[in-house]
């Protein structure tokens, strides 16, 4: 975990007040209280993505929550799909697995 100063040093064009605002908005979910935020790897990657969305893709801050909300839904679904996949993997027979695969490939 890293502090907000180190985070801003790692990512070009990032100011501490931006990050603080994003944490208050819950776009970034840091650990700790204001003034002592700690950032996990996932938070750092998320901040980097937000910076790219803002600076490179020119998504302004009004539109950012829409983009982040959709992304969070996308990744939540992907995690669910993964869990579903591994649950199926652990519970169904080889035959069922094969017919499932065929069905998904549109062959059955």
């Amino acid at each position: 975990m890293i502090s907000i100063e180190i985070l801003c040093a790692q990512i070009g064009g990032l100011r501490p007040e931006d990050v603080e605002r994003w944490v208050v908005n819950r776009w970034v979910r840091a650990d700790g209280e204001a003034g002592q935020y700690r950032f996990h790897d996932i938070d750092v990657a998320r901040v980097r993505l937000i910076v790219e969305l803002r600076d490179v893709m020119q998504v302004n801050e009004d539109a950012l929550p829409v983009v982040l909300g959709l992304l969070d839904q996308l990744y939540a679904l992907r995690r669910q799909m993964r869990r579903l996949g591994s649950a199926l993997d652990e519970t169904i027979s080889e035959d069922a697995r094969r017919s499932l695969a065929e069905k998904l490939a549109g062959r059955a």
Partner: protein
Amino acid sequence: MDDPYKVLGVAKDAKPEEIRQAYRKLAKQHHPDLNPDNKAAEEKFKSVSSAYELLSDAEKRARYDRGEIDASGAEKPQQRGYRHYADADRAARYGAGAQGAGWSGGSFEDLFGDVFRSRNAGSGGNARMRGADEHYSLTIDFLDSIRGATQRLTLPDGRTLDVKVPPGIEQGQIMRLRGQGGPGWNGGPAGDALIEIGIREHPYFRREGRNIRLELPVTLSEAVLGGRVTAPTPGGPVNVTIPAHSDTGTELRLRGRGMPGQGDQPAGDLHLTLKVVLGPPDPALEAFLRERKAEPGFDPRGALMEAA
């Protein structure tokens, strides 16, 4: 690496602002965090980023234009993207809505259906799709398994299916009822119902392939003197001749009285194993045995004693 001007789709004399615009446009399209699992987008984004890295730096761009450096000089180490973390389970930190990444049972059907529909759409638009096969099990009586029977099966959704069990079906055999499974999508045909057959044991009959085995009790006099008795078979009672000098364990075979014939398979046999049963006390028999002088020299436990 490819020509960075081509990668960004700009002219050799493009102004810095044009290069920035081109990069922004391509980044929006191919950013890998917005296209997880899309290898092509990831590769494209990488080359777009390196091209921009090179051309956005006036000094590097000039050296590239003079041929002093090649395009790969601009590559920089890739950081792990957000997708890398967001795909892991601990990313529930950024779950959508209040319940995070929890798997709520209610959404299961919705998600499942959508997933299948969208996968299908990916492979051919609004394609018709066959319904899923559904699995059931049905347990029938032994005699029904021999003779065949029609059994009513009530499905979880309240539908009933009349299952015509053919004669001679075996334990664990699966019957396929075409079109009785899950409904198809977009007018596709319904799936099949697959019914696994279980067979309850019979108190007396046992099945061995196409033959049936039965232990047949006989009286002492039927065994000693022989005679005609009636024996049950799956096809109804039949008369059996017990030969004289039979004993417990004597086997008789009734040809064609086992499994009924099917197609080119001939009917099986009924194997009877006799079992002598003395029945209630018989004073006359007792008197005879007591007065009998010369017992034949026979030891029924001889083999037993030798083996021990």
